[in-house]
C-alpha cells in the first residue's frame, strides 16, 4: 500500500525537486498529448519550445512576454505568502494600462522628461485603486477578496472597452476602437533592434530583487509570512490581519497597475480593447511555479513566457490552436500543486503503522 507521511525535516532542496518532477511530468504528458495528435513529440517539442529561442527576435519576444508575468508574479508571491488571494491582478493590470494610457494621451505631443514618470505613476495609481477596493471591502465588510477582485477584473476590462470605443478613441482612426499611438516621450525604449522586448524587463528584474529583500529582511515581509502561515500566531504576535490584507492588495494592485502601464507604453504603444492575454491570471501560475520565492519568479516567468511563444509556434508550425498554451500551463500547474505534497510529506511503501 502506498501512503504519505509527514516529513520530520524539510530541506530546502525538497521544494525544487518537487518543481523538477512537475516539469518533467508536464513534458511527458505534453509529449503523450502531441503523440496522440499524430505528431512526433521530440521534433514537435523542439520546434515549439527551442526554435523560438534561437533568434534575437525570439529572445526579445520572450522578454516582452516575461515582463508582466515576472512583475506581477513577484507581487502575487508576496500576497499569497500572506494568505491574501488576489485573483484580480488581471483587472489591476488593465486599470494600470487604462489610467497610464489616459495620462499618455492627455499629454499627447508634449515632450519632456517628466511625461514618462507621470504616465507610469498614473498607471500605478490606477492599479492601486483597483486593488484597494477588495482590500477595503475585505477589511470593512469581510467580503471575499477572491470573488471581489475577480468581479472587478471584468469591470476593468469593460471599462477599458468603453473608453477605447468612446472618449479615448483615435479621432483620426476611422472609428476603430483604438487610441492614438503614444508619442515618443510616452513610449518605453526597446531592448533590441528586433522584437518587442523593452526596458520594462529591467524593471521586472528590479522588482524581483526588491521583493526578495522585502521577504527576507523587512519586517513587513516577515509579518506577512507569519500571517499566512498561522493567523493565530500572527494575532498572538500582535500583527494586524487588516494591515496584512491592505498591504497585500495595495502592493498587488500597484505593481500589477505598473505592469499594465509598462505593457501599453513598452509593448503595445496605444490603447486597444484587449491589452493582455490573461497575464494577470497566468502570473498566478508563475508565483506558484516559483514556490512564492520572489527571486525564483524570474526563471518561472521566463518559462511561462516560453509557453506563450510555444503556443504561437505550435499554431504556425504544427497547425494546432494557440490555446494549446493553456493546456501546457494548466498541466504544469496541476503537477506543481500535486507534487508540492512531496515537500512536506514523503511517499512510503508498506503498511500504515
Amino acid at each position: 500500500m502506498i501512503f504519505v507521511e509527514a516529513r520530520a525535516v524539510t530541506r530546502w532542496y525538497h521544494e525544487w525537486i518537487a518543481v523538477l518532477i512537475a516539469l518533467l511530468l508536464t513534458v511527458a504528458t505534453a509529449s503523450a498529448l502531441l503523440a496522440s495528435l499524430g505528431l512526433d513529440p521530440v521534433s514537435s517539442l523542439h520546434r515549439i519550445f527551442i526554435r523560438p529561442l534561437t533568434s534575437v527576435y525570439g529572445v526579445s519576444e520572450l522578454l516582452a512576454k516575461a515582463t508582466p508575468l515576472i512583475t506581477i508574479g513577484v507581487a502575487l508571491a508576496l500576497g499569497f505568502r500572506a494568505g491574501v488571494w488576489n485573483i484580480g491582478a488581471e483587472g489591476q493590470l488593465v486599470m494600470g494600462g487604462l489610467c497610464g494610457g489616459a495620462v499618455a494621451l492627455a499629454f499627447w505631443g508634449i515632450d519632456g522628461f517628466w511625461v514618462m514618470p507621470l504616465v507610469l505613476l498614473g498607471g500605478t495609481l490606477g492599479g492601486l485603486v483597483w486593488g484597494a477596493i477588495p482590500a477595503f471591502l475585505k477589511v470593512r465588510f469581510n467580503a471575499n477578496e477572491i470573488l471581489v477582485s475577480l468581479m472587478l477584473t471584468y469591470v476593468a476590462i469593460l471599462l477599458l472597452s468603453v473608453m477605447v470605443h468612446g472618449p479615448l478613441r483615435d479621432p483620426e482612426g476611422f472609428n476603430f476602437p483604438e487610441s492614438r499611438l503614444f508619442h515618443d516621450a510616452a513610449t518605453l525604449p526597446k531592448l533590441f533592434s528586433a522584437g518587442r522586448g523593452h526596458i520594462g524587463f529591467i524593471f521586472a528584474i528590479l522588482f524581483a530583487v526588491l521583493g526578495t529583500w522585502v521577504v527576507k529582511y523587512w519586517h513587513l515581509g516577515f509579518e506577512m509570512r507569519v500571517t499566512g502561515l498561522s493567523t493565530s500566531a500572527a494575532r498572538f504576535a500582535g500583527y494586524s490581519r487588516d494591515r496584512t490584507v491592505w498591504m497585500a492588495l495595495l502592493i498587488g494592485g500597484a505593481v500589477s497597475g505598473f505592469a499594465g502601464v509598462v505593457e501599453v507604453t513598452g509593448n503595445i504603444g496605444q490603447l486597444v480593447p484587449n491589452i493582455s492575454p490573461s497575464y494577470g491570471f497566468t502570473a498566478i501560475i508563475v508565483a506558484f511555479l516559483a514556490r512564492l520565492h520572489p527571486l525564483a519568479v524570474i526563471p518561472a516567468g521566463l518559462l511561462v513566457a516560453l509557453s506563450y511563444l510555444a503556443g504561437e509556434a505550435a499554431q504556425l508550425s504544427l497547425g494546432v490552436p494557440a490555446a494549446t498554451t493553456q493546456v501546457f500551463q494548466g498541466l504544469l500547474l496541476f503537477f506543481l500543486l500535486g507534487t508540492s505534497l512531496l515537500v512536506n510529506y514523503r511517499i512510503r511503501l508498506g503498511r500504515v503503522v
Partner: protein
Amino acid sequence: MEYGLFTSIIHAIVIASTPLVFAGLGALIQERAGVLNLGIEGLMIVGALAGFASALAGYPLIVSVFVAAFAGSALASIFALLVLRLYANPVATGLALTLFGLGLSALAGSQYVGQAAPQVAEWIIPGLNHIPVIGRAFFSHDPLVYLSIVMAGTMWWFLTKSRAGLILRAVGENHSSAHSLGFSVIGIRFLAILTGGALAGIGGAYLTLVQTPLFVEGMTAGRGWIALALVVFASWRPFRVIAGAYLFGGVSIVQLHGQALGISIAAQWLSMLPYLVTICALVIIASRVKGENSAPGSLGITFKESK
C-alpha cells in the same frame, strides 16, 4: 407566427440564463460541501465540446447531455484528487482546471469549428403555451430548460429535506465536527465535486446544443466565473440561483437589444451591472452577522485527516 418584441426578449433571456442555472447549481453543491472550485469555466467548456461532439455524431439529446455530464465529472475528478487527496491549494487548482479545460477544448475542438449541431426540438407544454405573452416566453422551450428548473427543485429538496443533504451541509459547515461524527469528509466532497462537474458540463453543453449550435474556442466567455458569483449572490440557495441566473441572463440580453429598447448608453456599462451587483451582494452577505445567509463555514479550507 410572429411574436412581440417583449415575448421574444423573455424567450431569449430564458435561453441565455439556463446555462448559468446549471453551472450555478454545480458550483453551489460543491460550496455547500465546503469546496470552492474556481474551475467551473473549464468544466463548462469541456462539457460544451463533449456534448457538441456527441450531437454531431448523431446521438440524441439525452445521450449528449450524459456525455457532457460525464466529461465534466471526469475533469472535475482531477480537481478532487488534487485538492482532497494531495492537499493542493484549491484556489490555484481551480484556476489550473479552468486553463486546462479551455486549452484542451480548443485543442480537441479545432476539428469541429464551423460545423453545426442539429436543432433541438422544443417541448411545448400543451395548454400553458397558449397563455398570451408568457406562454411563448416560458412554456415553449427545449427540454433542458425545464430540466434546469427541476434540478434546482431537486437540489433544494436534497439539501433541506434529505438526510444525505444534511450530512453534506454538515461537512461544509464544519468538516472537523462532521469527521468526528464519523462522516467521510473526503468521500462526500468527492461526490459533491463530481456532481458539480456534471452540472457544469451540462451547463456548457447547453451553449453548444441549444443556444448557438456551434463550437468556438473559449465560447463560455466567463460564464463559469459568473456562475461562481451567482452562488454568492444567491446566498447558497438553489432557487435563488435561478433568480440570479435570470437576472444575469436578462442583463446580457437587454444589452443586446438595448438599441431596440431605446437605451442609448454604451452596452459595456450594462454589462458591468451583474458584476457590480454581485460585489454589492458579497458585501451585504458578508457584513451580516453569521447566520442564515452566510457562506458555509469550511468553504475552501483544506481538510487533513489526522492519523
